[in-house]
């Protein structure tokens, strides 16, 4: 892949098809865990000759660790069962197991593999899931994420978000790459490569398109790009600056910030760029719009009250109401998909941290202990927030669960990652 990059040194911007990969050397560090974790024993699957690395159970374990919902029991010292009938329940129960995962990988025709996986309730000694996947080697990690999703949903009642994807911008030297990767940061693919900054990527609700802001034309312009074929169009390129795209829940419209009439104001446009309708009025600064899950309300950041605060207003028009009250700088609103929580960045004594507001109760909780957090976005299942922060002078991505107890850091050595967005 590096070779492919070097072939086009003169191009300041190259649209690359989905088949272009990118090198991955992602490190994942997890700290903390939920108050009441489910004890789970993940027994290494019986391997097939020539299967990809790392082992499926390593990827699954990593996923479950990031969620903070599970405490993994060390399966060492036990004769590894591969089928439910081989499980010694009493022994696992004696180690405190609530659930057990076993499985096997078998060679299949055409270089494929069959993965058989079983999830068992160690207390009731019942089978919670039994699934078989016949996969190509390239579907290895995706299969592990699907199994982790099944485990998460069966044991917590809430779907996992391990098969979802994230978008982020990687800066290396003076090169910018907009990338889409698996939720654990692996399997990154380059969406856009540019010598100019790219910010604010946002997945369409169906995950098939990305809206983002590119400075390649010496000013900020909003693009929408298909992830399937790489085709793209300028959807907001009016006089002045164009930025901060947000998809409506039905994927038909975007809220954007334009400056064509006055200082930064929020407009609605069709997803193909037509019919701009101005939403906010007045000479103040309004930006960072996001839709509520029902599409009826826009949350946004404004300086209308003299400091940066988050407000909400009806999409149909009308008065804005202030949502954040504590502190002098609250920006970058993100809503959980159930509309219950608002995540945002709050400045307190010079530190910018991910903060969570339960909208109904007004309860506020600071989720991180870093100092330069930016760009929060919720996991599809609403249980965690993805954000950017700075560690050791370098931009890294992190996730934190909404209870604030489990944090994971996704980082690739030697590069600067920023502007993350969690997609479907």
């Amino acid at each position, binding site marked *: 892949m590096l070779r492919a990059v070097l072939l086009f040194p003169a191009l300041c911007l190259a649209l690359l098809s989905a088949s272009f990969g990118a090198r991955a050397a992602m490190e994942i560090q997890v700290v903390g865990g939920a108050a009441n974790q489910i004890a789970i024993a993940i027994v290494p699957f019986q391997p097939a000759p020539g299967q990809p690395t790392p082992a499926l159970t390593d990827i699954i374990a990593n996923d479950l660790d990031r969620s903070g919902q599970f405490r993994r029991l060390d399966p060492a010292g036990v004769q590894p069962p591969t089928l439910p009938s081989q499980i010694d329940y009493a022994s696992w129960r004696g180690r405190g197991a609530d659930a057990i995962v076993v499985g096997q990988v078998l060679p299949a025709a055409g270089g494929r593999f069959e993965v058989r996986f079983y999830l068992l309730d160690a207390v009731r000694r019942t089978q919670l899931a039994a699934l078989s996947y016949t996969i190509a080697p390239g579907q290895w990690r995706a299969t592990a994420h699907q199994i982790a999703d099944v485990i998460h949903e069966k044991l917590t009642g809430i779907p996992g978000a391990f098969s979802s994807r994230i978008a982020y911008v990687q800066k290396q030297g003076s090169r910018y790459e907009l990338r889409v990767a698996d939720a654990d940061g692996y399997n990154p693919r380059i969406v856009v490569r540019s010598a100019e*900054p790219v*910010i*604010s990527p946002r997945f369409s609700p169906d995950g098939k398109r990305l809206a983002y802001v590119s*400075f390649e034309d*010496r*000013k*900020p312009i909003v693009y929408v790009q298909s992830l399937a074929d790489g085709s793209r169009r300028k959807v907001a390129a009016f*006089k*002045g*600056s164009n*930025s*901060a795209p947000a998809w409506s829940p039905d994927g038909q419209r975007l809220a954007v*910030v334009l*400056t064509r009439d*006055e*200082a*930064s104001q929020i407009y609605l446009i069709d997803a193909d760029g037509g019919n701009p309708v101005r939403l906010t009025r007045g000479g103040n*600064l*309004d*930006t*960072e719009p996001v839709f509520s899950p029902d599409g009826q309300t826009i949350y946004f*950041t404004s300086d209308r009250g003299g400091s*940066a605060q988050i407000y909400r207003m009806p999409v149909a028009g009308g008065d804005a109401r202030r949502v954040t009250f504590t502190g002098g*700088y609250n*920006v*970058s609103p993100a809503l959980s998909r159930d509309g219950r929580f608002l995540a945002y*960045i709050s*400045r307190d004594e010079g530190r*910018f941290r991910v903060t969570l507001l339960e909208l109904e109760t007004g309860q506020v909780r600071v989720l991180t202990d870093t100092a330069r957090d*930016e*760009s929060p976005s919720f996991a599809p299942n609403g249980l965690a927030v993805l954000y950017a922060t700075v560690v050791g002078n370098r931009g890294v991505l992190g996730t934190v669960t909404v209870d604030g107890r489990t944090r994971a850091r996704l980082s690739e050595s030697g590069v600067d990652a*920023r*502007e993350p967005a969690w997609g479907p």
Partner: protein
Amino acid sequence: MNKILWPVLLVLTLSACSTTSDKPVAVESRTTQPTASTTPSTGTAGTTNAGVSGSALPAAPVVDPRKDPASPLYKRSVFFDFDKFDVKDEYRPMLEAHAGYLKANPNARVILQGNTDERGSREYNLALGQKRAEAVRRVLGVMGVSDAQMEAISFGEEKLRNTGTTEEAHAENRRTDIVYGDE
């Protein structure tokens, strides 16, 4: 070479014409020369006698005042205080010079590029940078520059001039740059 010489010759000829009516031959011999559109910049040579035209030559290679360090047009950056968006009085003379240039050159265009320091949200900073660009645009507008000649945009914190984290570095980044469309 021809591009430089012909206008000069034409000026010589015209000035000769305006001061001496007793040598019509010289004028007639030049009637097929380029039109007067190339002459206004050297046209002040007029009243002197054709014989001393050597003084008109240096006027031909015009220095672009925007590139001349001695000209106020050479200055392009308006700096702002922390969390402030008003153009300080010290920048008025410089902005007057740019307004004068833009009014004298209706085809000239400027992009006003607002910038912020790196602290805080990128999108919010983009909007703050826009405020700084708009502030300069409004001042130039009051000075008589047409809106059609100006575009206020923002780079937010994306194009830091100084990547340091000191207050001096932040101050250097809080600014609006004036960039001409032909640059």
